[in-house]
């Protein structure tokens, strides 16, 4: 503790008595006194209250204008509060300590590398904001889920400590390079990347392209409930990710998360086909336009058969070279009624190299944009079309608008998700010279980001 100090008046009061966070103190007010451990103050709240943890475990805030005196206790807590002339013994006094278990590692097990990048999966309380923040390292995570040691011998490394909304394409490069470093040691059966869930599907798509010849599975996982909660989904997700990393017959980039609200079944998704579709539920991640690639229950890993997919078998990847850079000059733009066409020309002025449109329905934007779109394309910008419907395929031959857009030079991206299209364009632009080649490759299926058959029914699990 002690990450966040008091400010202003509260800080003066505490400094005057040389009182530090974590110390046992007694505060007297007109009605009596409170004893407890001084806790840090959330930075974003006012500086008029001092927060203490009472002997009964409750935290309360005490208004500093009501404080008559404040002092350090010489010994441990003896009582919780002293009010109107009476000591109120804390309701529970057993402070027996139980430490977390120490793991004994078994050498005989397959090895995996667990790389942490932050997110809810490694979160606990943040005294800066009062919310949760990502602070647990990969080894903390590993220690909090000792069951993993049944399946693999895990080497841990903390690469980043960021919520995923703060990640940028350079971080994908950093992650890709770190993973390549691990792959090149040749000792790992698989690699697990713990990640914040908000943009995990962007990272999984980006890594799918950057690491498309990986000989081993790279499994991303995260949590929708933070690891400091007994109900956290982190443990099961980590266990499932570890099992898949060790057992999978295929290499590639995958995301393993809950398949439904129950703790039991996990779904493994292809890195290029997955999307976060719910703000908070455990089963927020879904494969778009196809079923999850595998289902993982407590006993087995069941691969879903899908002959439309090109999966690389473990060890088959030609890991000669990887292209890990991304160019940030790509914009993901959702069209909406009232969309201001000059946004397009402004983007051109600001150095944008490609636009991924999330068009309406089958892939449309209003004819009001035609002029700006033509100008943009004439000035060398590449413009691609995906659909904000997410489910289904773009088809710009059905309506006049679509045909007109095709005529202008907008390139349809079939059933690719908008996020995957964005990362793919960023990656292609960073690693290719010719725009003809980039446009061609955008429409070509490289990492199962496009499937050419639309299943009648998709079991989302």
């Amino acid at each position, binding site marked *: 503790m002690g990450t966040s100090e008091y400010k202003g008046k509260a800080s003066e009061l505490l400094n005057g008595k040389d009182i530090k966070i974590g110390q046992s103190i007694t505060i007297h007010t007109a009605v*009596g006194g409170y004893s407890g451990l001084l806790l840090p103050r959330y930075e974003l709240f006012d500086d008029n209250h001092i927060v203490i943890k009472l002997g009964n*475990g409750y935290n309360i805030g005490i208004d500093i204008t009501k404080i008559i005196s404040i002092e350090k206790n010489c010994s441990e807590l003896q009582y919780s509060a002293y009010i109107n002339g009476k000591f109120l013994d804390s*309701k*529970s006094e057993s402070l027996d300590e139980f430490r977390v278990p120490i793991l004994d590692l078994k050498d005989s097990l397959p090895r995996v590398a667990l790389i942490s990048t932050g997110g809810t999966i490694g979160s606990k309380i943040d005294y800066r904001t009062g919310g949760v923040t990502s602070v647990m390292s990969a080894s903390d995570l590993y220690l909090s889920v000792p069951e993993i040691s049944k399946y693999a011998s895990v080497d841990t490394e903390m690469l980043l400590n960021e919520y995923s909304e703060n990640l940028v394409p350079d971080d994908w490069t950093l992650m890709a390079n770190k993973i390549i470093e691990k792959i090149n040691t040749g000792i790992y059966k698989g690699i697990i990347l713990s990640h914040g869930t908000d943009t995990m599907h962007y990272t999984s798509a980006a890594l799918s392209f950057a690491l498309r010849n990986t000989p081993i599975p790279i499994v991303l996982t995260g949590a929708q409930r933070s690891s400091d909660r007994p109900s956290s989904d982190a443990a099961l997700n980590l266990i499932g990710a570890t099992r898949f990393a060790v057992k999978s017959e295929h290499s590639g980039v995958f995301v393993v998360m809950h398949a439904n609200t129950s*703790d039991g079944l996990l779904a493994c998704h292809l890195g290029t086909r997955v999307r976060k579709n719910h703000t908070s539920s455990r089963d927020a991640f879904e494969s778009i336009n196809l079923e999850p690639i595998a289902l993982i229950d407590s006993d087995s890993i069941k691969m879903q058969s899908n002959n439309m997919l090109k999966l690389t078998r473990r060890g088959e990847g030609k890991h000669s070279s990887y292209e890990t850079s991304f160019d940030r000059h790509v914009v993901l733009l959702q069209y909406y009624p009232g969309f201001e066409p000059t946004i397009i020309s402004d983007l051109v002025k600001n150095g944008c190299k490609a636009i991924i449109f999330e068009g309406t329905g089958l892939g449309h934007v209003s004819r009001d944009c035609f002029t700006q779109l033509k100008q943009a394309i004439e000035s060398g910008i590449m413009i691609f079309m995906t659909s904000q419907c997410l489910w289904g395929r773009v088809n710009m031959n059905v309506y006049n608008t679509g045909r007109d857009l095709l005529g202008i030079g907008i390139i349809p991206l079939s059933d690719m998700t908008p996020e995957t299209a964005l990362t793919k364009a960023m990656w292609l632009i960073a690693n290719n010279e010719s725009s003809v080649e980039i446009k061609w490759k955008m429409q070509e299926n490289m990492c199962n980001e496009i499937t050419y058959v639309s299943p009648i029914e998709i079991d989302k699990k």
Partner: protein
Amino acid sequence: MTTNKLDINLKVGLEIHQQLATGTKLFCQCRSNEDEEYTLDFSRSLRPAQSELGIIDPAALFESKKIQSFRYLAANRTSCLVEADEEPPHCINREALESALIFSLALNSHIADEIHVMRKIVIDGSNTSGFQRTMLISMGGFVEVNGKRTGVQSICLEEDASKLISDKNSKREFGLDRLGIPLVEIALEPVSITPPEVMQLALGLGRILRASKRVARGIGSIRQDVNISVEDGRVVEIKGVQKLDQLVKVIQYEANRQHGLIIITDKLKNELGIKEIRCDNGIVDVTDILRRSSSRKIIESLKDQSTVYKAFKIEGFAGMLGFEPYEGIRLGKELSQLVRFYGIGGIFHSDELPGYGITKENLDSIERKLAKSSKNDAFIIIGGGLTNVNFAIESLIQRLKAVLEGVPAETRAATPSGETIYIRPRPGSARMYPETDIAPIKVDSLLLDSLRQKIPRPIEEYTNEMISKFGLNKKLAEEIFDSQYLNLFEKIVSSTKISPTFVASKLTEDITNLERQGYDSSLLSDERVLEIFNELDKGRIAKESVPILYEKFMKREINRVEEFESGFETMTERQLEDEIEGILNNHLDAINEKGMNSLGMLMGRTMAMLKGRSDGQKINKILKDKLEQMLALREQ
């Protein structure tokens, strides 16, 4: 032998949990009623998490060893993603917060300047999140009952837990409807007090809460726990005490048990000179030895290949497991109760052996295997599945090592017969963790000023008002006040012209009578009671019908009053047919003479006989069919 309460400084602290009548839950907008039908289900598991101080709560750790998986049942009406732990909590229910603040003001309790919502780690499955959201509203103050003041320790506002539906084979099922209903917890100071005084105190405190008209009614809407301690012992929390006679027995039992444990400790330390309990030197497998025992129970249990029996010795403990400082209070019994949580029936210990079919020869073999050198040593045998036996031995050793501390801080449950049994270690402060999804709540002094106006008046003022305003006698005024029907009474009296005394007696005596007969009064909703009195007011039903209607609702025979009025009663089809056949047979002459033309006359007779017991149209149809059948047969 009974303990002398003065000698042992017996203290009893009352803790009540009262559901609030807020309509919606504490941290979401779901209805706060209990549901009968569940349409959704899912399964989860929970694991212990560290507190913000980096330690794991002993109660949480204990629970985590027992149960693997929980199944939750829910309905959309009463639960949403918040209860399913799939969505963060919404803002706090202001009405619930106000109620808790009003109670604090009413009990002169000192309200915190800033309220911090905490997570109290509970991983027995009763909360999907693995914690109960709770906040300390105030500390200190007092409640005055019959002129006697009892101190208040703390007042908390918290979420109610899920409803346990079933618990077997390490699989528990819960209903989510109750989860998240706001609950006020008032903990009183432990005091030297007699059991009837505790009940008076509970009643008095309950009256203050009810006078606010902000609390829920019905079974389970108020629950009380008692904390019991003796001199030199630690506080033991007893859950599930319902009635006075049970409370009297529980307090006496706990006084004996806790003092008994202190006597045992004293004897160990001072008579036997034991300074440290040594019991973890070698645990041996005695399965094969017991295979040769003559215990039918053991032999039967060994038919299951996975059953093992293990034994371990406790140095210098001979005689102590069976030692009985008070009747029925033995260390051996405490230990037997402990292992039941691992699905193990109990233990065998050396103080009671040979016996139970375990022979002298068996014992000799066991002692040899244990390398028991001294006749002063005791040993314990325990059998069951391997994992369970190992967990159970671990907790037995832990419990034995704590014997020298006297009374351990525990949570226990009251049995109907007035004893108590072990549930789990007393949760410590390590179970408390800040609820990071909800910002601290600053208590506004202007708000408090306005809430002071809403402090419930003393009960006497209410009863006196009811006496003068409604002409009730004092007894009835108090009865209606103490019943769950005060709000309903006022509603009925204000909306109808029926005599308040009549309404009050129907809401108290009549319902109590039916409850005594074993009917569930929770099946009689406020809406239905209101409907009954409205119909009575309009002259559509007789006064005598009121208790009959209560009974019909509690038996689930009718759903609405109009079903009773229209005379519809659930007579089975078969009964109806039999009745009608009887009537037809009594009028054979008329039928012979008039054929189908006798239908009108027969219908009149039948309706006169079955009036109010079945639907007229149905009677008509059956009668017509039967008559046609009968005439057709005659023609053949």
